[in-house]
């Protein structure tokens, strides 16, 4: 069965520092890949998605993610973190032949210190 691993439960970075959140998936082929963000009291907002093509994808709020097939990874990056980026980040996989449901990772809580 497909699965998604986000190895870091919590990450703390200083404002202005770079950020990388890790995501690995287990799946036999190339799935569709997503990053969602959840701020306190808010829903899940899509940051970016990968379906095919260029393996470096740009998203909203200055985020980007790189799909690496050889490592089964889809890590999320941002060059300079802002205090407003503090939230929980979820990586999700949408294997095409499993219909349209998403399989989520456990999430990474990002704290930003000033």
């Amino acid at each position: 069965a497909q699965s998604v691993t986000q190895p870091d439960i919590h990450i703390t970075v200083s404002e202005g520092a770079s950020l990388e959140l890790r995501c690995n998936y287990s799946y036999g082929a190339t799935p569709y890949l997503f990053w969602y963000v959840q701020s306190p009291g808010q829903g899940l907002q899509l940051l970016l998605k990968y379906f095919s093509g260029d393996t470096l994808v740009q998203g909203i709020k200055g985020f980007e993610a790189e799909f690496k097939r050889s490592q089964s990874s889809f890590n999320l990056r941002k060059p300079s973190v802002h205090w407003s980026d503090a939230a929980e980040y979820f990586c999700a996989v949408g294997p095409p032949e499993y219909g349209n449901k998403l399989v989520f990772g456990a999430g990474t809580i990002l704290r930003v210190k000033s």
Partner: protein
Amino acid sequence: EPEVTQTPSHQVTQMGQEVILRCVPISNHLYFYWYRQILGQKVEFLVSFYNNEISEKSEIFDDQFSVERPDGSNFTLKIRSTKLEDSAMYFCASQTKKNTEAFFGQGTRLTVV
């Protein structure tokens, strides 16, 4: 910008009671979903709905659960007899067509006491 709307944002119910969680998906979307997140756990798929019928459901989605799209705009999740372990955040999502991104609502926090 169109968004998925869920009501209520928080519901407290007594064990054994029926609850209905409501969602208004984005208007031109055709695929609808419910997910849930128990506190401290992953977001889990419950059910998908297309063309007025369930297209897929997880093992969590047992006979206590049902979904309905009663009027072409609302999409509801009913839990017939709530249990303590049904306490969770429930998310509704919708998408335009297969293999596109899903848009999520802000969630309904259900607390069963």
